[in-house]
């Protein structure tokens, strides 16, 4: 069994609208390992959620995958390129829910309000597996117990509105685990929750991973969540990978200026009251007006005149991590270091 679960190479997802093309995901590279947690971080508009929708092929029109590959490795050694599958094909439907499932941010809007949580969870098993209704029910109750929903047998016939926010998110996790998937994609699973409930849900996800060996791709903008649960981290900006690294390397020795800026802008508990936060100047550019050169050039504190605003850096491979910045390019690194004419 390969250690790699999903390899995304040069993935681009564009929205061709009347006012222009929105490059939501633009040449993304990302590798998910089995039994590991990959956190994808970035500001709003960086393409995190669109990456998740692309993997599951649930893009809303006019969004479409225009290039790239997503090689998914099954447990038996077979592989499939998800990017080549028709979103409505039988094969894609078999992957969704059974091999890759999703946890959404707001369970209230992503669960059916008119079906009980029990029937919504067992439906997953009935669709994907050859089980009887009674078996599905028994397994659902077992799952609800496992995500620590008290009195699971009674909760089987509760409707989503009858549960609290934290409880609903647990039911959502149970639903994602219904068919014992290999990969769970969680899109901001704790953003709508209180800190205390967030801590409980993160603990639960960690525990489930330890027991069942699933891979988790966790999309978040909260670097605290990343510090808590990630093994690997991908930092995205304007649809591209800016840095991918092991979580310890990312926090202890961030390579890319954007990563450094993000880490500096978070109020940390070890800062003194009133200590100033690092500001990232400006804001994420309009998707129709992408800068020429490096995507981050308009806001980068370390940009070099005549280089960063002219050419776009590649994703350079470093020791165990990757970074999209000229300071890590063997060809340009010397020039970058000498050129101290920082673009004002």
């Amino acid at each position: 069994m390969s250690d790699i679960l999903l390899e995304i190479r040069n993935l681009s997802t564009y929205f061709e609208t009347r006012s222009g093309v929105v490059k939501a995901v633009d040449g993304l590279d990302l590798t998910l390992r089995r039994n590991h947690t990959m956190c994808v971080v970035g500001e709003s508009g960086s393409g995190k959620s669109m990456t998740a929708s692309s993997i599951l092929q649930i893009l809303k029109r006019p969004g479409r995958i225009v290039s790239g590959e997503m090689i998914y490795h099954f447990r038996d050694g077979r592989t499939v390129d998800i990017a080549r599958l028709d979103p409505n094909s039988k094969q894609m439907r078999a992957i969704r829910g059974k091999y890759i499932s999703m946890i959404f941010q707001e369970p209230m809007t992503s669960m059916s309000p008119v079906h009980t949580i029990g029937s919504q969870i067992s439906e997953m098993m009935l669709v994907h597996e050859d089980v009887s209704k009674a078996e599905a029910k028994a397994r659902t109750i077992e799952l609800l117990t496992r995500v620590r929903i008290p009195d699971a047998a009674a909760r089987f016939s509760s409707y989503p509105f009858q549960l609290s926010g934290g409880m609903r998110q647990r039911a959502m996790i149970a639903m994602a685990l219904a068919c014992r998937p290999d990969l769970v994609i969680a899109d901001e699973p704790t953003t709508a929750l209180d800190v205390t409930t967030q801590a409980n849900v993160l603990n639960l996800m960690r525990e489930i991973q330890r027991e069942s060996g699933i891979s988790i791709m966790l999309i978040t903008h909260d670097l605290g969540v990343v510090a808590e649960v990630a093994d690997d981290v991908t930092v995205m900006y304007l649809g591209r990978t800016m840095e991918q690294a092991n979580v310890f390397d990312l926090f202890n020795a961030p390579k890319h200026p954007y990563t450094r800026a993000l880490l500096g802008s978070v109020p940390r508990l070890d800062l003194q009251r009133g200590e100033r936060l690092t500001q990232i100047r400006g804001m994420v550019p309009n998707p129709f007006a992408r800068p020429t050169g490096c995507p981050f050039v308009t806001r980068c504190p370390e940009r070099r005149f005549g280089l960063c605003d002219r050419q776009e850096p590649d994703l350079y491979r470093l020791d165990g991590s990757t970074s999209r910045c000229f300071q890590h390019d063997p060809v340009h690194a010397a020039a970058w270091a000498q050129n101290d004419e920082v673009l004002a």
Partner: protein
Amino acid sequence: MTDVMQPPATAKTAESCLEVRNLKMHFGQSGGFFRQKTGVVKAVDGVDLTVADGETVGLVGESGCGKSTLGRAILRVYEPTSGEIRYRRRGAGDWIDLARASPKTMTDLRNDIRMIFQDPFTSLNARQTVLEAIGQPLFARGVARSEVRDRVAMIMGKVGLRPEFMPRYPHAFSGGERQRIVIARALVVEPHLVVADEAVSALDVSVRAQTLNLLQDLQDDFNLTYLFISHDLSVVKHVSDHVAVMYVGRIVEFAPSAEIFARPLHPYTASLIAAIPVSSPNLRGRPRAELTGEIPDPSKPPPGCQFHPRCAFATEACRKDVPPLRPMAGGRQVACHHAEELELAGIPA
């Protein structure tokens, strides 16, 4: 329930400008046949809180603890059920009780006490230009249009918006810029006290950093007093001089910010601190108490200390008697029977 009132400790350095005394804000619930009264939601139930002039008090707690209701009651969005909200204008010696102030007095005070709301997308009128939105409180006071322009231009400069944007509509701005408009609107009348209800919660990290820095600069420039309501403890620690922790309508702990985080006295405060995500993966695995269960329904609060069903240290006394908010050493206050005996973990400073 005991109604014993303890005088809250005031900060030593400055005079207080807001003193909330035994404030109660109850909402009637109705339902069933003929919409009978079925219960009372005690959203705020006997709160004492003192805010010193020029400082920032952070108000934290889980959703449903009544922190927003308290903030709104101070602005008299609601008519408080009972209690006092004593407010003193800067330089003036006499106290005004906002809970009983006449509509005329409140209208006068609207320029003194201002509010910043959470969501900059819903708190701005889409059909008002930036000039109209920020200048609204001035127009309402009958200030001449040319003077309004000057003052709006001045405040826009302060919050980092270009005055040329005055004729634009909110849709032309990003989330962070809109929040600046909301802040400018709150500050254009040169207020004294600003109630910021989750003012940065809806913002992206980079924009949040800009906004927090801005709020700090404005506090220095205009000598503002903030009541900063938030569920995010790391943000609260960053901005606050004092922190008040609220649970089901009551303040359970009040202390200087540095001390409350270093050594919490109430078990609830300790569990909130324990739930904050670590700031670096190197700190993973520090032992911490996980808080289970959920915040009780404020219309059916448990007897005794409201936190006892979730508290690891609860005893018989906690199940029976409501602990009053009582003063402790160092200007701190806590509502726990066992505050002296407990050794609770905070975060090393």
